[in-house]
């Protein structure tokens, strides 16, 4: 009687360890493969199986992706579109959030609800009219068209997160500040913004990944390859290099995930929290 449960537990332990190891391999190995494959010479693909480790460091792949593959241009464009959008998203969502939660006016709850509709609107639904609008205003093939779309489509969720955070904040602090003679603008800047630092970080993290990963808007509004973003650039990479130059393709895909990898190594806690906050707080 004594030995049986003991044995069972041991078997159980090994089984779970094997399962967890398998899950980890399935999760991590493709990324490991991608990164190591990016420094292989093209001849290695023919001579050795695909899973073989690289025989040396062939950095030429990266040079080729960065220059001939225009990754330098794509990175610059993605950075401009994403960072400018983030600035506006943060400004708009904190000001709107504060106005609909803490300020006194008639329509505030209706306006809060109105901003929430956007959470349900798929990008695909707005795409055709937006394209026509940008065509008429000559905004296709501009940074402006993407930034406008990114900001507007980032508002609903950001405002939702900010208002949720603001509702848990006591009013005493604002009251005390106002009694001390603080005006609305300095209240916003000196008290509200510092207090909402965590919520703002959450919005920044979440929206950074959403905007950086956008494909639909950028492939629709941008046809000029000088203005393409990383995602649209990657999509047509095989056309540029042909299907045989795997090295350069792997190098460019690796390049597009390396910033994510570095951000993740240092900020994984904030990133996991930020990315899941929409679900956890909803």
């Amino acid at each position, binding site marked *: 009687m004594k030995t049986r449960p003991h044995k069972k537990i041991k078997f159980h332990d090994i089984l779970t360890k094997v399962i967890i190891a398998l899950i980890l391999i399935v999760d991590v190995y493709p990324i490991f493969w991608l990164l190591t494959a990016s420094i292989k010479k093209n001849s290695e693909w023919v001579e050795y199986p695909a899973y073989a480790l690289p025989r040396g460091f062939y950095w030429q792949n990266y040079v080729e992706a960065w220059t001939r593959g225009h990754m330098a241009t794509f990175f610059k464009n993605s950075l401009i579109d994403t960072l400018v959008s983030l600035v506006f998203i943060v400004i708009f*969502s904190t000001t709107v959030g504060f106005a609909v939660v803490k300020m006194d006016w008639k329509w505030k709850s209706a306006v809060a609800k109105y901003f929430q509709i956007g959470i349900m609107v798929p990008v695909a639904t707005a795409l055709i009219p937006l394209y026509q609008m940008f065509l008429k205003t000559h905004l296709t093939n501009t940074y402006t068209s993407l930034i406008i779309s990114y900001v507007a489509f980032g508002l609903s969720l950001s405002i939702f997160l900010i208002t949720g955070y603001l509702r848990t904040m006591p009013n005493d602090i604002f009251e005390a500040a106002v009694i001390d003679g603080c005006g609305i603008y300095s209240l916003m800047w000196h008290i509200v913004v510092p207090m909402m630092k965590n919520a703002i970080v959450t919005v920044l993290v979440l929206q950074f990944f959403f905007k950086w990963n956008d494909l639909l808007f950028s492939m629709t509004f941008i046809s000029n390859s000088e203005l393409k973003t990383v995602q649209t650039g990657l999509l047509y990479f095989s056309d540029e290099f042909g299907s045989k130059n795997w090295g350069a393709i792997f190098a460019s895909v690796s390049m597009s995930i390396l910033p994510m990898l570095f951000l993740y190594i240092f900020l994984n806690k904030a990133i996991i929290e930020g990315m899941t906050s929409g679900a956890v707080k909803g």
Partner: protein
Amino acid sequence: MRKVLGNKQAIALFVLPAFILYTIVVIAPIVISFYYSFFSGTPGLKWEFVGMKNFLRLFGDSRFLDALIVNLRYIGFVMIGQVGLGLCMALLFRFWLKRFKNLIRTLMFFPVVLPTVAVGQLFAKIYEIQPNYGLLNSLLANIGLRHLVHAWIGEVDTALGSLIVMDIWAAIGFHAVILYGAILDISDDVIEAAAIDGAGSFQLFRHILAPLLRPMIITCLIFSFSGTVKMFESAKALTGGGPGNATKSLSMYMYDVAFNYNKVGYGSVIALFIFLMCIAGSTVIGLFDRKEDL
């Protein structure tokens, strides 16, 4: 106090710019799509009022129906995979994983932050057969399963399945982490009490964990649904909708109709259909949440 927080000028300054932008870019297009849907052609070019013709056409359009079926199958399998397997993983973490919890959680979540197009390109190379075997085929060939070597994304039978596997891989960490958080919120006392009362693992799950996790599972399902109903980026990056139309989703078909065939009116009808599907699906899933409360 009143005066400062009721400052009309400040409210207008805080709300109006975002309000106007949001109205023009997010809300107005839905209304405009509705208006477009009564016309044929492209605005400014053979733009004619055709009444309900575009709507009626939807039901006889076999390519639309194909895209709808592909999209529905994709939604079903990806949802089951992401949330079902995500839940299994969350349970595994809570009850069987003793060390390295944080490290493993961190590793698991990483694919979530990767750009969809990069994941698509990576998996295209994993599934590759020409000009060289990709990762999957070369592994199969070398462990004696050569008969399974296959053009995974080049053949109609396996293309959608390959896409589904990729999208489960990419998002499972998200659901596992959320559900794991929800399991941690359940107090240990409740679980211990059930164990003392003689509940086995299955009973513990069925009678204690499942009801308590229900709201979070529903949230995950809604997230998974609203992500999959839009099916576009990952399919575009992995297969481009092919081979044939085997992985062509509603959004991709809409894109073709509106931007490649220049049928803006008909494309708008499909866009509205996607919008309605998104709302209807989320509402239906949400209903399951309330039923139990009664």
